[in-house]
């Protein structure tokens, strides 16, 4: 007898998250606010369990639900990133929310649901699955962006993200329906076959443009980036950390899968879009970040430009390019989580502080924190021997290999500009006079996240092969 549910082993990680989230809702609903700690811990455990399930899925390609859900090396790599990002976001949140009197059991559940959405996005192999995953993820994030709902900025962040996100989802849907209308199928392989067969024409490009616009919004690439600084600034810091890490990876995975999986034959068309978006993101992110005073806004622009760098790899459109994107995302995840751990650690007696000037003289009061923060910033700037250098190396290398010299050179120049504002923060931390007292001690979970990500960032050069080989295998599974 055939198994009742043959897809089960393929969707096991997703199943764990979905079922687990429902159980968590029940626990939360029955035990009320007392269950916050328990739900939080269980959510981390769930994500860990899903991670283990992902790790134990075989390396071969497997499909489920009539081919609309696919698990391959690429999916497994990106799912690991998404899961790590989510787990870290949960760890970063606990102490922060307790102190901010925002501790609610819904937060971990929403993060788990968003993670589920991301996993579905990453595995999506047709337009419907793509949209389902994307919306599940986005809806959860809209809510947690406004989690501090008595705070006007947080509410505004959530609302703004929702309104603009809904608009972008609309564009995505519109593009999807155009693609369906012109190719007659929603499955990526089917679309690829139709495109290769010459179906579509301009209508298809229309669809492609709208899909690209919708996805560009999700990774906050210029010119769909406007929401990023406001939402990053307004949302509670752990939520910002979450938004800056895992969903970015998931949306980028989606972008890669859509373009490489469904439109490989018209790379000339979408490469123009990606190149434009990449250049605009790198340059605008770099320049606009310089003038920022709020560290979270600065990180928002920084994330915009980093997405631009990652897109450089995608623009190459080769296996090496995708590998570059994957390595970039993996290392960016570590850098961004570490940086946000530092931002969350910026808390004085009077409460959380967020301006860059509050970092002045950090090296005197907290040398270890200052050192790690400095290393993370150097890494973000792309200075060796830190991980960020290798991330840039791979994407620029792939771009040059694909003969996109102009793109690579502009990327290098943008990173020169970008290095400037990271260095400014370091100068502030190390050389300026402190304005107020030391920060309060960090929570152990925050310490843990900072420690692990710093180790990855600082020591990546010693053993780069592990991540690189995994990314290489993942990239090859798409070609």
């Amino acid at each position, binding site marked *: 007898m055939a198994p009742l549910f043959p897809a089960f082993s393929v969707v096991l990680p997703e199943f764990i998250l979905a079922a687990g989230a429902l159980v968590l809702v029940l626990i939360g609903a029955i035990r009320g606010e007392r269950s916050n700690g328990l739900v939080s811990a269980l959510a981390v455990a769930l994500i860990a369990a899903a991670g283990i399930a992902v790790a134990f899925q075989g390396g071969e390609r497997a499909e489920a639900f009539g081919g609309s859900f696919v698990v391959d090396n690429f999916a497994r790599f990106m799912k690991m990133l998404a899961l790590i990002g989510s787990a870290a976001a949960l760890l970063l949140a606990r102490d922060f929310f307790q102190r901010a009197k925002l501790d609610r059991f819904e937060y971990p559940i929403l993060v788990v649901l968003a993670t589920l959405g991301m996993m579905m996005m990453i595995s999506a192999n047709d337009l419907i699955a793509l949209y389902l995953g994307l919306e599940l993820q986005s809806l959860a994030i809209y809510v947690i962006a406004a989690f501090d709902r008595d705070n006007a900025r947080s509410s505004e962040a959530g609302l703004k993200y929702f309104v603009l996100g809904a608009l972008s989802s609309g564009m995505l849907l519109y593009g999807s329906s155009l693609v369906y209308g012109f190719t007659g199928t929603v499955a990526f392989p089917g679309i690829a076959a139709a495109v290769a067969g010459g179906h579509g024409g301009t209508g298809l490009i*229309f669809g492609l*443009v709208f899909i690209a616009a919708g996805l560009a919004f999700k990774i906050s690439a210029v010119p769909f980036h406007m929401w990023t600084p406001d939402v990053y600034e307004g949302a509670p810091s752990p939520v910002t950390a979450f938004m800056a890490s895992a969903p970015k990876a998931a949306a980028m995975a989606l972008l890669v899968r859509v373009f490489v999986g469904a439109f490989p034959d018209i790379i000339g068309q979408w490469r123009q879009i990606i190149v434009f978006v990449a250049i605009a993101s790198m340059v605008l992110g770099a320049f606009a970040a310089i003038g920022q005073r709020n560290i979270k806004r600065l990180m928002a622009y920084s994330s915009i430009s980093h997405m631009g760098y990652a897109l450089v790899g995608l623009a190459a459109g080769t296996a090496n390019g995708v590998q570059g994107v994957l390595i970039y995302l993996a290392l960016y995840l570590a850098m961004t989580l570490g940086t946000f751990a530092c931002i969350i650690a910026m808390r004085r007696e009077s409460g959380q502080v967020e301006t860059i000037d509050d970092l002045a003289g950090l090296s005197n009061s907290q040398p270890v924190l200052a050192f790690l923060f400095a290393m993370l910033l150097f890494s973000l700037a792309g200075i060796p021997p830190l991980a960020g250098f290798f991330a840039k190396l791979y994407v620029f290398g792939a771009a040059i290999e694909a003969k996109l010299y102009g793109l690579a050179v502009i990327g290098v120049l943008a990173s020169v500009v970008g290095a400037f504002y990271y260095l400014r923060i370091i100068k502030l931390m190390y050389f300026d006079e402190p304005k107020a007292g030391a920060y309060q001690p960090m929570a152990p979970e925050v310490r843990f996240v900072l420690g692990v990500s710093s180790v990855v960032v600082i020591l990546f050069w010693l053993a780069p092969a592990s991540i690189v080989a995994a990314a290489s295998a993942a990239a090859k599974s798409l070609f």
Partner: protein
Amino acid sequence: MPDAALYLTILIALPFVGSVIAAFFPTNARNAEAWLAGTVSLTNLVITIMFLPSVRNAKVVRAEYEWLPDYGLNFIARLDGFAWCFSILIFGIGFLVVLYARYYMSPADPAPRFFSFLLAFMGAMTGVVLAGNLIQLVFFWELTSLFSFLLIAYWHHNQNARDGARVALTVTAAGGLCLLGGMLIIGHIVGSYDLDVVLASGDRIVSHALYLPTLLLVAMGALTKSAQFPFQFWLPRAMAAPTPVSAYLHSATMVKAGVFLLARLWPVMSNHEYWFWIFASVGVLTLLIGAFMALFQQDLKGLLAYSTISHLGLITLLLGLGSPLAMVAAVFHIINHATFKASLFMAAGIIDHEAGTRDVRRLGGLFRAMPITATLAMVAAASMAGVPLLNGFISKEMFFTETIESHGNSVLDNNLPYLATLAGMFSVAYSVRLIDQVFFGPAATDLPRKPHDPVIWMLVPIGLLVLICLLIGILPGPTVGGFLATAVQGVLGPQLPSYSLAVWHGFTPALIMSFVALIGGVVTYFTLKTYLSGNIEGAPVLRRLKGKRIFERAIVILSWRWARRIADIVGTTRLQPQLRLLLLIAMLAALWPLSAGALASGALALDVDWPFAVDPSFVLLWIVGCGCALGAAYQAKYHRLAAVIIMGGAGLATCITFAWLSAPDLALTQLLVEIVTTVLLLLGLRWLPQRLEDTGVRISFGARLRRLRDLGIAIVGGAGLAAIAYAVMTRPQINSISSTFLERAYSEGGGRNVVNVILVDFRGFDTLGEITVLGIVAITVFALLRRFRPARVSVEAPRQKRFQNQFDADRYDAPKAGIAAHYMIVPGLIMRLLFPVVAMMAVFLFMRGHDAPGGGFVAGLTFAIAFILQYMAGGARWVEARLRVLPVRWIGVGLLVAAATGLAALVFDRPFLTSAFQYADLPVLGRVPLASALVFDFGVFSLVLGATVLVLIALAHQSIRIYRAMAAAKAAETDAIEEAR
């Protein structure tokens, strides 16, 4: 040499290991630190010297480790003669600097930090020169920038040190990033990052189309590192570093990394006009500017810094000339400059240490106070000036010879000898000034400390270096000949050009130039002496051209003004412009494929045949619909109630369109959904202010214009969407599933209403899932609204609503009178009477659903409307006092019935949700289709009804809850007052 790979690895690793160990020593362990650092550099020096036989005659030693294998990147330590020569400098001078630093640093300075950074820098520099692939070179290149940053900022309590460090890092690290880009392109051209492959690539790089961008990027890296014009400004600022750091980094090692790189790539990149123009012109400019500015410095270290810049310019110029002989001269000058400049920096440090100031004007007559230091410094300075019998003279003469050689018939080339002589003159002048004003003349009287010669161990390093200067200067052949040959062979290969290392070459033009420079320099100095001793800072004319000032100004403009402006222009924090931007960009993006050829080719087939003759009434309907949509948009901000109702009109037009285009089922569903959503929206309106206060105010012209613009955007966007949608919909369907459904609906599902058959039969499982979700959603909405409270910051209730609330609260216990009585009495009565009619209608729609438009979903919505009308007419209290509405049970029953129908099929051994159908003749109703799907449909009906009503009730109860809360608050207040009494 046995196991060369191991030793090569030790060369790179040992300083880093030492650095880590050094970091853990106690703060005041100066001796231990110095011993450690000294041992490390001496060990490495010995290892390097032992490598000599392996690198002679252009041989290369390599050690390779896997690093990023799949990227073709291995960690390669590669030692050739050139790298060997640099290693000797790094470790030899490194050792002397460590020895010097032991006595230079005061006990108050934290020693671990200094020595740890110094060793790490040594390791990074070794990494640069031993790099066997290009990426590795960039990697260590940036490390040297980082550690130099830390070393310059060692005294970070000093504002100058902090600024200097930041400027140095910004400039050099940015240059390093450019270098990375250049290296990536070179790797692409050659096909490998391996240095040996690159060096063996011949003219491939030069003849490649990307030569110029590559060259520019590499040049950015090299010129920033070697402080060449226009990036020279960071070096003088870095003089705030402790003197051992300056002696090490800014004479012998770090600044040499730039010229090292140029020499490294010289064999494969120099054979082009661009190379000559870029590096020769930058070199000669730097040479002149540096020498000129050095003469006018009042700070001893500043003078040395500009002199370093000038000498690096000289080396860059030599490398830029592109001839092998110039290459020899460049390498030779690298060696010589390292020796005399390091010793001069150390001497300057001693003077600063002992006299307490570095201001050349305040110093004077120190020869008497510190004769040994003075003698050594004078010899070194003479070498810097190019006095015969010292090493500076020989390499400078080689330089002069090279400038005379013709390299190409250009203006620059023809004038080089004169420019070189001029620079040499300034060089002599500032050297003489250093000697004369510091060591001779009237003894300084106002020195902070009484100067005397320092301990012998501070003098030993200088002495050794000066001895080398002398030895090379007097006996160049035997002393440095082999060394130089080994180094140059590392670059040029085994075939060396013929050159002669001798002091005397006869009366050559170069000799004449040397003497002109010497005499001219002395004359220049003595002419300017009084002026120089005056109250001047920096060189005339060029003083204005302060790189630092320009840099900082550029930074301010870039980082604040422009960045802010960009942020202001592109980044708005307001939602409306963001939405507008997003829409506009999407529209532009949509235009892109059109412009990409569609307009020309007409591929987007908009000229489809109209499938129906356009009926005037249909057009009228659409005009009404569009009018409604516009009206709704217009009123959305000012009168939401009106907007919602007008929107209903637009929806109605859509419904009629559906019916018109023969989709009655769709029309019916749309109509009902329209009604329900409108009502729910109306109920939701209560939490928003009713209307804006300032509707009566005259709208300004600008606002009108803005609205017109938005209207335009909306019309263009909407029309565009409609056009594309139309184009898609009128395309022939590809392999659509709908034909299958149409064919099989009656034969297999027993219904003529295909939509309904699909819902309850073909895709019954989907429908089951959907109604489950619907039920959950309804219960969730209910649960959420029970706890709902508007956020504190959301809009405060408008005046009229507050008034109304107050009124209601006051009257809560009072008899129903006032506005409640007779309020909406006529429509209320009609609505009440409508209840059975609407209910009947629902049953009718339900029963006919299988064959004609209708069905459980539609019927459920219809029934819900019946309830909604009651709530609207009578209010929540009135309805609930008379009707027991149990929506949750409806939901439950619906779900159970639907599931049970499906399970029933299992009893008959059919798959889940298989349906059977039959017709039955019932009294009154007549012939009725009785499919098992009808029972399933009843489940759908029940659930839709329950869900809709549940949401409605949740909304309706909000009104009651507010009064209850107000009453409770009032009661509590009264209690409090009474208690107070």
